[in-house]
């Protein structure tokens, strides 16, 4: 397994390089420049000298191939460059944002797992029941509801009306500040997990080996533990992996709404002002996160299903 993991980790390198090249090229041809934003939105005159100085300082006056080569060389040295906007190393900016981002993403997933999977199981055990109907209505709502709107709704109810929780802010990472953004972010994966779990359990429950087990007199608890859970776990882990992987990138709406200092809001602000090194850095981190989660999911497959071997 160790060799497999090493091989998968090495396979990430060309993927990351391809992503890096793509981001570089996209932002090189995209209209708009960092120097152009120095008018402060029409508030001040922009001198040609300043534009030349900014372009010289950040190497933007060099030909595209030279800039691309410089970028790759820096990347090979784990140097993500310097932010145009803050003039600080991009690594430092990302380091300051990565923990709040992970806090939010992992909390949202913890909520989705602890509520979504049991709900899906319970609904599947009693198909057509009131609980099943409520769960599925909730799941459809959760999947179709825009995050922004849900976030506002949560703010309105739990902050404004009930006064239980703060409506915004990081608050030094306190739990009470985390609850609302985590619910807003975690609701869609929760709904998806509940739906997936229900569908998976229903499928397994209808299979021949379950009928055989039931005919043999296996107790419901044993049947769920040994036959249903193990079979449905591959499906759940796949869904879970995809959701965790994409959550860092998806969080930007919630981060902006709740003034949560994560990677998503940093990326959006950086795109707006064409702070290209920061955009490249944040996207690379988000892609890296996705790839690492994928490797983990593959490893977990082998652990939960002996039929899957890792070579």
């Amino acid at each position: 397994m160790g060799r497999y993991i090493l091989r998968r980790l090495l396979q990430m390198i060309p993927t990351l390089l391809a992503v890096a090249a793509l981001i570089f090229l996209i932002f090189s041809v995209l209209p708009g420049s960092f120097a152009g934003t120095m008018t402060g939105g029409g508030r001040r005159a922009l001198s040609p000298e300043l534009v030349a100085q900014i372009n010289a300082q950040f190497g933007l006056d060099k030909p595209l191939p030279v800039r691309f080569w410089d970028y790759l060389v820096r990347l090979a040295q784990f140097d993500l460059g310097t932010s145009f906007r803050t003039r600080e190393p991009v690594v430092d900016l990302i380091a300051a944002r990565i923990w709040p981002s992970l806090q939010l993403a992992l909390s949202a997933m913890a909520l989705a797992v602890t509520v979504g999977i049991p709900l899906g199981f319970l609904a599947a055990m009693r198909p057509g029941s009131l609980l099943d109907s409520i769960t599925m209505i909730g799941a459809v709502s959760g999947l179709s509801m825009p995050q922004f709107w849900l976030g506002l709704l949560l703010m309105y109810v739990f902050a404004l009306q009930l006064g239980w929780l703060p409506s915004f802010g990081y608050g030094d990472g306190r739990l009470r500040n985390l609850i609302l953004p985590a619910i807003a972010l975690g609701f869609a994966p929760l709904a998806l997990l509940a739906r997936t779990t229900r569908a998976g359990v229903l499928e397994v429950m209808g299979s021949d080996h379950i009928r055989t087990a039931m005919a043999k007199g296996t107790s419901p608890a044993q049947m769920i533990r040994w036959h249903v859970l193990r079979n449905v776990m591959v499906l759940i882990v796949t869904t879970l992996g995809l959701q965790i992987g994409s959550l860092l990138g998806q969080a930007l709406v919630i981060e902006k709404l709740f003034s949560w200092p994560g990677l998503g809001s940093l990326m959006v602000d950086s795109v707006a002002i064409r702070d290209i090194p920061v955009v490249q850095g944040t996207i690379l981190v988000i892609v890296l996160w996705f790839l690492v989660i994928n490797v983990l999911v593959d490893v977990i497959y082998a652990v939960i299903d002996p039929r899957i071997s890792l070579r």
Partner: protein
Amino acid sequence: MIMRATIGALLLAGTALCAPAAWAQDVQRGGTLNFTAPYGSSVGTLDITASAEVQTEIVAHAMHRSLYKWNPETGKPEPDLFTDVTISDDGLVYTYKLRDDAVFHNDKPFTADDVIYSYNRIATPATASPSANFISRIKGFEDVQGGSATEMSGLKKIDNHTLEITFTASQDPGFDLMQNYVPIYPSNVEGDTQATQPVGLGPFRFVEHVPGSRVSFERFEGFFGEDDQPYLDRLNILIMGEAAARDVAFRNQEIDVSVLGSQQYQEYQADPDLSKGLLEVAELFTRVVGFDTTKPPFDDKRVRQAVNYGIDKDLIIDRLVKGKAFPAVGFMPTTSPAFDPDAQGYAYDPEKAKALLEEAGHADGIDLPVIANQNESWGAPIVEAIIPMLAKANIRASVEPVENAVLEDRITAGNFTAFIWSLSSGPDPLNILRCFYSKTAQSACNYTKFSNPEVDKLYEAAQQERDEAKRNDLIRQADGIIREEAPYWFFNYNKAVMAHQPWVHGLRGNPQELAIQDYDKIWIDDTAPADRKPQ
């Protein structure tokens, strides 16, 4: 006339009345103010000399001071870090007697060395500072920028508290040197560290920056001046770019002030409680559609005038901008000292617009493609609204929506037929007139490539004029010509609105930018929430 009277009343309410009303109560010391920075979800850098963003300025104003300061009541710069100044007969040499009671947050006493260090640092090309424009009239600036010198020859230390600055033009340097973008940094601190550990002369000392969330400060006990001691113990500037989130937080009393958009303005006005805490001011911003005056058919002033006659701006301001703006008469706003109170703007007259087009040889009509961002008050929604109006005048307007960075890039590169934007129109009217001077580069604010010999002459004369009233008169004349030449469709002057909680006092209607407040003048009373009220 009624409109102007209303603006005057608003300004009065925003500036003069606001503060005295607050002082009528017993001032209370202490407490924490939760202020908001509404222009984005982060503060780029804490070094204001490396930024052109208002978001950074909101933060910088708490901890830094410049040589001059802006007085929103008089609309003029006034001394801040100096007590006296002597001006040479030719108006080029200023000898400043600097304050001897000012101390930086790191306990370093303020001296002439700090001013020289700060200005030279901004001028150095290696810093690529967007603040450089503000010190470009100091003698020797060009040499430093060109690399032939490392220090500006126009900065001369006489003694620790006497500084001589030689300028290359006799224009009042106060408007430039009062900017928050040219703060005085301590000369014993490496400039680069200002981005993360800022040290200044301001009333509040930096405590913590949680990127994307907040910047926190505490009162600086060593702040200069007996009467200028800040009232608040702590100041949190909360980064909240999302208007809907600000609204909930304000109603939930988690924040003490909020800057309102047009939709919220209408809702707050309608609310009996919230409407009591609205601070309004006519800001020095003019919203316009700019034409490339060198490109046919917009090289003909009759065509440009036709666009001005072809739009019912009052209707747009009423319906779309929800009354959160004042109809523009010309470029200089009503709050500018160079505004002409007798000036008449373009009234809505589609027939006249059509006639002007025919007279210009465009009986078949013209196309007007406008690049615009998504701003609700001066972006694509406004262009969408003027399309049917202009159609009646045979002008086929269309909108090309672009991202803000693209808009700025295309405008400064001259890559447009027309654009819609919000442009600074103050506080220094002479500096604004420079944007209509034919020798000003297109990218450096002469966006419409405007060229008029009469305006050039008036600008040059105003530059030489030392008497303020006469200078403003010259600028007023130039503004009249610009109004007639119509390089822009003059849309509106922004009405900025700030909502504040009932326990907040001392806010001032700053027409430069309402979100920039003198935090040392603000105090809160004991009706504030328990975690923030004075103890």
